[in-house]
């Protein structure tokens, strides 16, 4: 399936002081959802944050629809159509659910509207007037996802969107994520839960120590237990 | 830890700065020049008075074309912020760095005290007070090098107590004033006269820096025959405005610094209260005296952007400058032998004032001067004070022997006291 490139990253590097967190990552993403998996501390979150400008890249380029965005402030990157569901959710404690969503909806039209969000996440509709610390972790997570979708981005980056969600909601989330490409929204999914990642995405990139260690497909990865264990697994690689 | 290099470089930088700074005063040693330093306040709330003081000094020096007894006058101007330690630093700089012979200044009471103390440590320099009017400066612990040709705060209110009791028939006066020494002295002076005649006074002190007098105004007894306003400058304007806004109806009488050009030239509802207001003070704006008229003309011509009439600051700095010039003239500019001759001349000088009177000094080098009861009048929308009564030869001790006066104690919040029963 020919998939026109929407977002292209080449030779991206990020340093935190002396730590080289992202070491020359190059990836191209089209409309088809892509998962990035890997253990904690391997640079997945750094990659997400660098794409949307929450972390400044020290070298490399990020092109959205062919336009260089890596030197732009994050609000301009967002206006190029990239949205993020960040790690830790980062919802605004001062705002109620409804206020969040009103802030996020641009009103410029698009597949995702306030009504659709409430339909998709009925729990949010129930907690419309609640804000900040009154939401549970899972509710905050849904809110963060809804917030990103309401921007009707061309491309959305989700950093562990299933964190804190109850299993039944996760199943529901999988349906939502699978359907994104129908709305013309590309998806980069960073996930520790391999099942979720492979359920949504065909293409899987594996990160290890700030680099892309392997590019594979969901089917291959699911069938290859040693590979799972090497890059993600519970068992020590040495065993 | 210690960066030796930093220190060495700092020392080098210091040396450069230092040598640059020495260029300026190098010509100080020339003969035939008399250096006069001035200290007034050009910052903060007192700045208006300071600016007028500069005008007065400019006039006084220009009148003699910056020459006295054939010697050139060099005028070194310094400004303080009405704070004692700054005035002191400026005075030191004038004396020790600029090597002035004479300082004219300062403006405010605390500064006056500080410079009086400093003058005691000097030999061969003279400080002639500019405008500061704290009584103690020349009453207790006096300094031989400190001369004051203006009355102190207490002298400035002389006559008002008598006028209130006798002419206005007031028997109970409510006093409002700032809670510090300068107003204490004025209230002391007022009560010397008023209480002796049998009047009663309710005192309402406000902390210094109060700008919202609403609660003070609410506390003024309704049965008081008059309200004596001792506030000055911005405080006076604030009080008067708020009193007017609160619909205050009791007759007002005012201390010397309440009614000055600052308050009269400001606009606002307080003008209703100002019209015909009786106050005491050392100057009268709209005096018929020809000397005064000529003085005002010169002032206005030279400084079209100045006040409608010279302020109290201008008058006192002018008198101080005139005194210095007259004494210098008398001794032919001779400031040798620690200025002995000059200081002796100053001490027995009779200086004509712009008000048409004369001022001379007592043994403590404190002015014996005239004081006025004044009425505010409206001339084409501009307010002026006119003379109602004039009291000559007002001394610092209200005519009492100094010992007897000192025995009354220092003016304070509670001294003296004659509250209504």
């Amino acid at each position, binding site marked *: 399936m020919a998939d026109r490139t929407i977002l292209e990253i080449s030779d991206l590097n990020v340093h935190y002081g*002396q730590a080289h967190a992202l070491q020359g990552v190059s990836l191209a993403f089209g409309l088809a959802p892509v998962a990035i998996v890997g253990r*904690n501390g391997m640079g997945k979150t750094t990659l997400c944050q660098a794409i949307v400008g929450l972390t400044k890249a020290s070298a490399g380029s990020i092109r959205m629809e062919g336009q260089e965005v890596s030197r732009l402030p994050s609000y301009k990157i967002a206006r190029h159509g990239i949205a993020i569901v960040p790690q830790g959710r980062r919802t605004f404690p001062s705002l109620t659910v409804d206020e969040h969503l009103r802030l996020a909806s641009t009103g410029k039209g698009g597949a995702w509207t306030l009504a659709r969000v409430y339909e998709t996440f009925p729990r949010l509709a129930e907690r419309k007037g609640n804000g900040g610390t*009154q939401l549970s972790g899972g*509710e905050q997570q849904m809110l963060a996802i809804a917030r990103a979708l309401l921007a009707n981005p061309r491309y959305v980056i989700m950093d562990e969107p299933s964190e804190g969600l109850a299993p039944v909601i996760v199943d529901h989330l999988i349906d939502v994520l699978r359907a994104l490409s129908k709305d013309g929204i590309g998806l980069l999914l960073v996930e520790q*839960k391999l099942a979720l990642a492979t359920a949504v995405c065909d293409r899987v990139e594996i990160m290890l120590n700030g680099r892309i260690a392997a590019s594979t497909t969901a089917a291959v990865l699911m069938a290859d237990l040693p590979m799972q264990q090497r890059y993600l697994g519970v068992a*020590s690689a040495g065993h | 830890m210690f960066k030796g290099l930093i220190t060495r470089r700092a020392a080098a930088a210091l040396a450069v700065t230092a040598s640059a700074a020495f260029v300026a005063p190098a010509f100080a040693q020339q003969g035939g020049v008399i250096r006069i330093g001035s200290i007034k306040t050009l910052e903060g709330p007192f700045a208006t008075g300071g600016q007028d003081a500069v005008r007065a000094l400019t006039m006084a020096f220009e009148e003699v074309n910056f020459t006295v007894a054939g010697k050139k006058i060099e005028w070194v101007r310094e400004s303080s912020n009405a704070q004692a330690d700054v005035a002191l630093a400026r005075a030191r700089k004038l004396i020790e760095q600029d090597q002035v012979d004479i300082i004219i200044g300062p403006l405010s009471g605390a500064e006056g005290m500080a410079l009086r103390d400093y003058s005691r440590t000097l030999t061969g320099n003279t400080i002639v007070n500019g405008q500061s009017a704290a009584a103690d400066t020349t009453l207790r612990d006096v300094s031989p090098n400190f001369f004051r040709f203006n009355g102190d705060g207490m002298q400035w209110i002389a006559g008002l107590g008598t006028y209130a009791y006798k002419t206005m028939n007031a028997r109970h006066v409510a006093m409002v004033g700032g809670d510090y020494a300068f107003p204490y002295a004025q209230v002391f002076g007022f009560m010397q006269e008023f209480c002796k005649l049998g009047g009663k006074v309710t005192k309402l002190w406000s902390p210094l820096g109060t700008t919202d007098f609403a609660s003070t105004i609410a506390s003024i007894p309704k049965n008081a025959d008059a309200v004596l306003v001792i506030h000055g400058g911005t405080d006076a304007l604030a009080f008067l405005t708020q009193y007017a806004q609160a619909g205050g109806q009791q007759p007002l009488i005012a201390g010397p610094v309440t009614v000055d050009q600052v308050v009269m030239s400001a606009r606002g509802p307080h003008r209703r209260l100002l019209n015909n207001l009786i106050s005491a003070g050392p100057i009268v704006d709209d005096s018929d005296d020809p000397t005064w008229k000529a003085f005002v003309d010169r002032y206005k011509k030279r400084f079209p952007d100045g006040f409608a009439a010279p302020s109290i600051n201008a008058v006192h700095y002018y008198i101080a400058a005139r005194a210095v010039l007259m004494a210098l003239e008398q001794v032919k500019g001779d400031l040798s032998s620690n200025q002995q001759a000059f200081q002796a001349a100053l001490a027995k000088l009779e200086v004509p004032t712009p008000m048409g009177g004369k001022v001379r000094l007592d043994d403590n080098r404190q002015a014996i001067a005239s004081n006025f009861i004044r009425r505010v009048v409206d001339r084409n929308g501009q307010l002026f004070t006119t003379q109602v009564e004039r009291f000559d030869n007002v001394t610092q001790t209200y005519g009492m022997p100094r010992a007897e006066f000192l025995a009354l104690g220092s003016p304070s919040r509670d001294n003296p006291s004659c509250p209504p029963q």
Partner: protein
Amino acid sequence: MGNALELQDVGRRFGALHAVKGVSLKVPPGQRHAILGPNGAGKTTLFNLVCGDFPPTSGQIIAFGEDLTRRPALHRARIGIGRTYQTSLLFTGLSVLDNLLVAIRGARKGRFSMLPSGAGGEDVTRARELAERVRLAHRADAEVATLSHGQRRQLELGMALACQPRLLMLDEPAAGLSPAERPELNQMLKDLPRDITLILIEHDMDVALPISDMVTVMKDGEIVVQETPDKITSNPVVNRIYLGQGHG
């Protein structure tokens, strides 16, 4: 004296967020105990509770037989609880040696002394030993701000050891280390004297499993499994949590 650490039904809420839910845990003296779990499982919150950064909303924390539930943070250090932090919390303006000195004195008398301990002082000697032990002797006088990430992790460990802990709590010591640095860390952990009780939060199995006697797996603020390391890899619950098998 019983257990080095005992948690009885410890819970912590942040508003509606129930970060730690009724955790009960016993760690006998000398045990190496690893705590595993995905992000957001409440592992670090648990550490913070034990170290007294904030009190639990329910339950009791007992260490070495003493109820610590309401004692201030500084008291924990004084009875011998040392810890490291996920993101280095070092004194960046001080040298490596000074960092260690501050750590050494924390749990001792004389921490308030305004007299220097002297060039040959016992503290300085110990600090140098510690620097040696965490392989930082060559950078002992360097300002921490100039250290690499790996070196900071080493210093973190040194700081935790400096207060001569009886209970050492390490929060992801391997995070951000390069593959080359990991074996070195492993060795350092293995070299720890056996009388120190060790609790370790780790994602990296390569680091955690070889050295631990017991593994606790947490998820959503709860303990889901407690097993010995040899059994943990085959535990289906653990594999589901880690690999998400059982979904989709």
